[in-house]
């Protein structure tokens, strides 16, 4: 160990959250006896101002050069305590936390066992912190231009917001026109304003902005570099391939609709009068609410949750279909008051502003609601010659427990949203991850909803998960705000935790080269050495574990630091009585 360590140890009672199970005094006493520990204190709320001041004062007055705080999860208050160190002029990376709340006092009842565990975790933290090194953040410039992928409602919003803030934007759209899926809709729920109007306003602003470069029939083929300093290669069909310098990328690539032919019993593709919600939107836009052979439908059946909330297809809710289905009821009843509209639904999810009110109003239109069991969608068949309709929709009605044949001239399938089939290519190109359903993953669902694993790459709209227009626009504007905040600074601080290759130890074996998901490792064929471009590195450490020469160090997660933790957690426990 380092002889000159003067460690301050602080254990938080967190009111009674920690102290009612963990004997903080006992932990203090045991930790105080460890080599290098200069002081050990317990306090009611370490994260409070007096708690932080206690640390800063001790650093100044007692000459502490390392701090361990045993408290809540570092995911909660590590930034707080790092600031306390900085306030006393100590490098923030000389802090280590022991998580004795979320992972100890909140989950264990037995005070003796919980206290023993807290001691072990604190011991490990003390042993680890001895090998902490002061780390300095690295600064890089931030290019003002932004690349926006996708010209749907989210992408348009991002692009317009940035361009109108006088920042250059490249809006890349794969199709020949802007608008995305919103461009395929007629009216929007719950206020029944026209999708066309919403889009037209945005597109007009986009086209009018001198800062906004719209690249239609184009796609991103390669993205190199790092936050603030990306180089994007964009290829335009029948046009030039461009190399763009951008500081940030906002991915707004949207969704695709569920393929209704996958649920055979719905009859989509077999019966021309079974249509998807998008096909109905098209008919509504054209003002032709009729069957395939041009008749006015007397019976319209709307099937909810097609592909959504179904364990065999997509387990999640697509969020917009219930409201859209209610909108259809409204539009059909307005156009054809005599038509009988039946909603076959699983649950009515009319959440959100104006949702419940819209549900109440449309249900007053005397549409019929029949409930079916999740995973047991209705079965569509041709009606008998004597029947008064073209199709019969058989449903196992859940509330009555009866099998009901619903007459229909037109069956509308509320097809759910799914991640785009080419989402994986986009994810790989820009270096973001996808969940099991293929949706792009945000850094934190609550605290960082538009950031991603790659710094400088943001996501907005339905590529992240199904959402309605207000949510997409809100995310888009959030992403634009994130970009503008960085652009305003003109520079970026790169996290001090990254991997480093010691050129004196690198053997040029190239074992690590293919492992980095961010292509942060480059190989110099002349020197025969690999090196890490620190700004690209996300500090996962997978190359560190692989490096056979031991030439790669994970800053703040070094082998030595982790070895110390391993020995620390076991030093007292493995000598237990058994």
């Amino acid at each position, binding site marked *: 160990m380092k002889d000159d360590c003067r460690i301050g140890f602080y254990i938080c009672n967190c009111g009674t959250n920690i102290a009612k199970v963990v004997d903080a005094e006992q932990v203090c006493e045991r930790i105080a006896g460890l080599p290098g520990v200069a002081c050990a204190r317990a306090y009611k709320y370490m994260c409070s101002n007096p708690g932080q001041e206690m640390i800063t004062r001790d650093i100044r007055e007692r000459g502490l050069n390392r701090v361990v705080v045993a408290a809540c999860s570092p995911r909660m208050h590590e930034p707080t305590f790092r600031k306390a160190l900085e306030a006393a002029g100590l490098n923030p990376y000389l802090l280590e936390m022991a998580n004795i709340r979320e992972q100890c006092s909140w*989950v264990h009842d037995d005070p003796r066992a919980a206290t023993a565990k807290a001691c072990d975790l604190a011991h490990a933290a003390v042993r680890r912190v001895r090998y902490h090194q002061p780390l300095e953040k690295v600064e890089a410039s931030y290019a003002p231009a932004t690349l926006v992928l996708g010209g749907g409602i989210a992408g348009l919003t991002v692009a317009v917001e940035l361009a109108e803030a006088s920042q250059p934007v490249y809006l890349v759209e794969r199709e020949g026109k802007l608008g995305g899926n919103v461009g395929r809709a007629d009216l929007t729920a719950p206020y029944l304003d026209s999708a066309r109007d919403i889009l037209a306003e945005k597109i007009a602003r986009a086209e009018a902005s001198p800062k906004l470069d719209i690249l239609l029939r184009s796609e991103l083929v390669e993205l190199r570099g790092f936050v603030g300093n990306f180089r994007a290669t964009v290829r335009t069909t029948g046009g030039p391939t461009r190399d763009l310098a951008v500081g940030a990328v906002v991915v707004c690539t949207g969704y695709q609709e569920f393929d209704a032919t996958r649920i055979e019993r719905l009859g989509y593709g077999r019966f021309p009068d079974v249509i998807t919600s998008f096909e109905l939107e098209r008919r509504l836009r054209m003002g032709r609410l009729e069957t395939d052979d041009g008749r006015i439908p007397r019976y319209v059946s709307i099937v909810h949750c097609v592909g959504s909330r179904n364990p065999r297809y997509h387990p999640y809710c697509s969020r917009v279909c219930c409201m859209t289905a209610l909108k259809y009821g409204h539009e059909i009843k307005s156009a054809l008051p005599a038509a009988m509209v039946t909603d076959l639904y699983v649950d009515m999810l009319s959440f959100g502003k104006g949702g419940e009110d819209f549900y109440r109003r449309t249900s007053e239109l005397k549409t019929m609601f029949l409930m079916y069991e999740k995973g047991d969608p209705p079965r569509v068949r041709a009606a008998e010659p004597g029947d008064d309709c073209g199709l019969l929709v058989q449903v196992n009605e859940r509330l009555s427990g009866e099998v009901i044949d619903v007459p229909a001239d037109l069956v509308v399938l509320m097809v759910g949203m799914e991640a785009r089939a080419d989402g994986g290519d986009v994810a790989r190109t820009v270096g973001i991850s996808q969940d099991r359903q293929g949706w792009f993953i945000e850094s934190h669902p609550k605290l960082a909803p538009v950031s991603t694993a790659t710094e400088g790459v943001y996501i907005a709209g339905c590529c992240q998960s199904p959402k309605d227009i207000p949510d997409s626009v809100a995310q888009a504007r959030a992403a634009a705000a994130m970009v503008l905040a960085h652009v305003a600074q003109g520079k970026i601080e790169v996290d001090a935790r990254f991997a480093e290759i010691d050129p004196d130890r690198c053997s040029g074996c190239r074992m690590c080269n293919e492992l980095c*998901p961010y292509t942060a490792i480059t190989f110099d064929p002349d020197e025969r050495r690999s090196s890490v471009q620190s700004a690209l590195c996300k500090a996962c450490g997978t190359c560190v574990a692989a490096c056979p020469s031991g030439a790669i160090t994970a800053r703040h997660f070094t082998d030595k630091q982790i070895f110390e933790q391993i020995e620390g957690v076991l030093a007292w426990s*493995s000598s237990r009585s058994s």
Partner: protein
Amino acid sequence: MEFEPIIVGFLCNWCSYTGADLAGTARIKHRPNLRTIRVMCSGRVDPTFVLKAFAAGADGVLVCGCHPGDCHYIEGNYKTMRRMELLGQLVRAYGIDERRVRLEWVSASEGERFARLVDEMTLELRQLGPCKLRPTVAALANDFDGLSRAVTAQVAASGEVTHG
């Protein structure tokens, strides 16, 4: 007193550690036998860490990462999957019961699953008993204590021993 195993856990910051925190915020009680070490990604887990934990007296080692396809670092967990497979072969060669080393995928939303996993592994290790792999070079002086009874008994049974 019942044997209480100590499990060293290596949890990735983004999924599993967050899942463990979620078990906390949701107050999902579980056995206090796990000692967690946070890493940024399960891909950081060098097999040396696992061996080191056993050498330092752990009764079991639990490595947790994001579900395949969900990795915060896109595919770090696939590297973990491969390393743990080969490490598993070594662990078996060492004569360490393979139930003592587990690789599990725990997402940030699986607090309940995390808690059950800790309980399950604790109970399993209780039945297996302590892992006596803490080597002590200090015991060298007493390293030799003659042939064990097992061999001696075998020799006696064969009845044809000539003492050289």
